[in-house]
């Protein structure tokens, strides 16, 4: 998925949604869907299931790089603000400390660095996850309401080159899906 490309498949169908009952069934089904060569698909779980990213063949999240960048930016800004204020904007000698009293700048430099890194982590995560997105074809499905409770799903999107409304459905059924549903876009 490219970062700035369209987010949802166009065409009459969004894709196929299959429901599984246990993390175990879902895990094995994911391995099979991955091995069948699908690329535009996802699994949905009420809680993070350990090892599922591997079973899906996902790469690691790029989020740490965003956080690193933001953290370094925060550290730099925090330090430079204090440096600039005390040596240029408002140079006052207080309790005999030098104008560039860098050890005294460390606590605030650290705090601003942490603040920026945390903002990077939260908003970077929102960006990578395309949140907020209050409309989504998956929400049209009634069974999908249980994704935040106790049901496990695989959705294969219609713009996947290997997608076919009937054979993909049969594949998911054969992997032990309790129900399979074709969703409109």
């Amino acid at each position: 998925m490219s970062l700035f490309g369209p987010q949802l498949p166009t065409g009459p169908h969004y894709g196929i949604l299959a429901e599984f009952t246990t993390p175990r069934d879902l895990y094995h089904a994911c391995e099979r869907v991955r091995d069948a060569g699908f690329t535009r698909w996802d699994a949905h779980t009420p809680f993070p299931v350990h090892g599922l990213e591997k079973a899906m063949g996902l790469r690691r999240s790029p989020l740490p790089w965003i956080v690193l960048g933001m953290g370094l930016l925060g550290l730099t800004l925090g330090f430079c603000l204090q440096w600039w204020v005390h040596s240029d904007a408002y140079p006052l000698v207080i309790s005999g400390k030098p104008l560039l009293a860098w050890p005294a700048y460390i606590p605030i430099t650290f705090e601003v660095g942490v603040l920026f890194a945390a903002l990077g982590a939260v908003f970077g995560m929102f960006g990578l996850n395309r949140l907020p997105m209050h409309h989504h074809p998956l929400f049209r499905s009634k069974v999908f309401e249980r994704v935040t409770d106790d049901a496990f799903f695989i959705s294969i999107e219609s713009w996947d080159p290997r997608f076919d409304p009937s054979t993909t459905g049969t594949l998911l059924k054969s992997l032990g899906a309790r129900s399979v549903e074709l969703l409109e876009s």
Partner: protein
Amino acid sequence: MAQTEADLLDNPVADRPTLILRSPDFHSITEAVAGVVEGPTPTAWWFFFLPSLALLGLLGVAVSWLFWEGIGIWGLNVPVGWAWDITNFVFWVGIAHAGTLISAILFLFRQTWRTSINRAAEAMTIFAVMCAMIFPGIHVGRIWVAYWMFPLPNQMDMWPNFRSPLLWDVFAVSVYGSVSLMFWYVGLIPDLATMRDRAKTKTRKLVYGIFALGWRGSVRQWSNYETAYLILAALATPLVLSVHSVVSMDFAVSILPGWHTTIFPPYFVAGAIFSGFAMVLTLMVICRTAFGLEHIMTLRHFDYMAKIILVTGTIVGFAYGMEFFTAWYSGNPYEVFAFLNRAGGPYAWAYWIMISCNVISPQIFWFKKARTSIPILFGLSIVINIGMWFERFVIIVTSLHRDFLPSAWGYFSPTFWDIACLLGSFGLFFTMFCLFVRFLPMVATAEVKTVLPQADPHWEPKPEREIKDGRALEPAPEGAS
């Protein structure tokens, strides 16, 4: 139930019991937690909420009167220029720390038991930081210039002094508040989505839906989400240690005997965790009994928390002793006097309340019977919070009230408005907490589900596992105490 559950904790024949009792499935966890928010308001809730709201009103009156009249309405005067205001501030910041310890530090140490209590503890953190932030704000007296604390460009071309610990404190506490809020909200998103998907009314669907941001629980989302959560935990860990260290530097960087000690940062952090865990205990004991969550917040959780209280309480006791040693070893007569005066001067009563509440009373937690007895845990959690409030009072007021010159000595007594501000801050805290348990899921259900055995994709039901869980179930579980 209390007895059987305690027995299970170290039964050498059986394996350790599961973290969550009664062998629930995923759905029953959702039911147990979301049901609290969706059901009708319990009458007992009003008995907590209305008095809290009344105290919050008292805070409003006290603060308004303070703004109108000035800080002279408090008992402050030379030589005691800081008293209950800063005591309350340090007390509340300290309470906050346990929430971050549970949510961040225990997460990094892979302590999965934290999942039952982390949501409520993080909420407690945020509300405690709110209470804490009031006091430095209002104690400046000229409230209309409180913005001078922040580096805002202004028409006077004036900037704050970044070399002062008081300004470090402004940054530390406000960054801590912001990061805690973000951490809490990120943790809430999956559960808000649960509330959205279970909502029966349009309003609920809309409100929970807006805040759930359209969460779909997809593995691609979870992958970024878990990375963000891990990073936030890794950021919050040094942050929480820095916050109370910086708070302690408000004192330690001064040259006042009794404050000017290098032991302050670690000693304050240990004390913060100590008092915070006590407050978590107070709240959790009430919540689990009131909302029937005994199988999620089990005696095992309380056992662990009591151990942390024992450790941190003993560290605090060591620090009290070490202060006396350092005062004697320094050979500085003012330093020696400050400490002898603390333990034997006019405020000796406060000092010995502190010692008995914080050092002596937690020693009962060496005994497992005490660590797993709900009445003892509840009683002691309140005793410890009283003790920790007195610790800050002792540090602040006893160091100030006898200056270098006996002609400048004084004695601080609180006025009605001092008491009103303290009680009022409790009103704010409990009002927020009551609203929290009423409108938000107080247990992180998505995280609790991950510690159930069947959440592991490689888990297979084994016959003997069922027998063991059956034993935990044997005596019909009913409300403890």
